[in-house]
């Protein structure tokens, strides 16, 4: 993914906590999973910037820029993932952010490959373990900026 001209990634330093933006896009009130994930990632030593419900791609991009986040995590339960997730990936690309988008929630198996092809870094579902959630986020960041 391309960087905005002029601003390059910081030198990698695995001493620094990963900064994760967590949000729900659009009209979807299922935030229980997102809260669980927030605690899981905090307990894994990450800094979670919790945006909560009713976010837009614009508000998420803005938060990412201001917070200098390393990764975006979205939780989706309203069957809107096939439109919303690719839209998020595209918004990130347009902003030149270069951060991966990880998704969890209710995504039917047959949609997972579609989303991955659309540029989503990972898709997790109900019952994903603490370890799986943490590993997916770490791997997504590592793949995006291998130095880290």
């Amino acid at each position, binding site marked *: 993914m391309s960087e905005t001209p002029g*601003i390059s990634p*910081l030198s990698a*330093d695995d001493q620094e*906590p990963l900064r994760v933006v967590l949000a729900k896009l659009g009209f979807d009130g299922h935030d229980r999973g997102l809260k669980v994930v927030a605690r899981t990632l*905090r*307990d894994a030593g990450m800094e979670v910037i919790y945006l909560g419900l009713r976010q837009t791609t614009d508000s998420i991009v*803005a938060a990412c*820029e201001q*917070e200098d986040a390393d990764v975006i995590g979205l939780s989706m339960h309203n069957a809107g993932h096939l439109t919303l997730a690719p839209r998020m990936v595209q918004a990130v690309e347009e902003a030149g952010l270069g951060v991966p988008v990880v998704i969890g929630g209710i995504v039917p198996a047959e949609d997972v490959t579609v989303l991955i092809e659309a540029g989503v870094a990972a898709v997790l579902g109900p019952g994903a373990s603490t370890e799986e959630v943490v590993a997916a986020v770490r791997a997504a960041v590592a793949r995006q900026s291998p130095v880290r």
Partner: protein
Amino acid sequence: MSAPSLDELFESARTGNRRALGRLLTMVERQDDNAVMVSERAHRDAGQARVIGVTGAPGSGKSTITGRLAAVSGAARPAILAIDPSSPLTGGAILGDRIRMDNNVSSSTFIRSMATRGHAGGLAVAVPDAVRVLDAAGCDPIIVETVGVGQVEVTVAAAADTTVVVVTPGWGDAVQANKAGLLEVADIFVVNKADRPDARGARRDLELMLDLGHRGDWRAPIVLTTATEGEGIDDLWSEIERHTSYLHHSGELIRRRCRRRRSEVADRIELGLRDRALRIIDDQSGESAMVRVERHELSPAAAAEQLLATLIPDNPPKE
């Protein structure tokens, strides 16, 4: 792709580029080698912005108030720095202040969440630098939200020109012990959640406390707010403006900022000394001293005196 120079980053940040500003803040937050350069560069242009601290117990409504304040300030580019504690066990943190702000602020408000990151004194050092960077980028006012009223918070309150202390009805029972500390830092009191019973009682308690304790020519006003509804926020902003002009006219602004920078330099020296102290204990002279401490030939205090003399030559060990 070449890395942008600091000047380029600052230039972009000044024109409102969120990413450039976000990146600069990360640099000072990390307190690495870049941080000193960023701080240096920022300090040249800083000193313009009004810095407002908002502090109080968790859940008292600081984030809601802060977001509303940024909105009513009418400023072109307000900034919010929201600070939350890192978990001492894992180093992680949940930074949830934006939830209470996003709905109220305009897109020109720059919000940054910051975790304390646990390193001793780290907060005290990183926060003034972050404020400096926001200031140099042209943000004004800069509102700093910090949790609680205790030791760390008093340090952070010292980073602001105007400190707003938020309490809620029933606060008096909760912070019985720390009333003196509250008086010390508060320029303005807010009784938030005035929609709840006994907000007037809370105000009365504060008035009593101020009658007994207040010194100097500024008596902290008390503002009742219902932040979720935006009630009282205009009054709060007026009081902040009144305090700002008091600071200017009384000369207190210059004194405060001067005191602030003194303590910042002192904090820096303390951190640097501690680093060197740890290094010197591990080098040769330190090791031989430590061996003698282990053999009970030298007391820890005497060893420290000896080693301190090698750090600061004009402080010879007492015989």
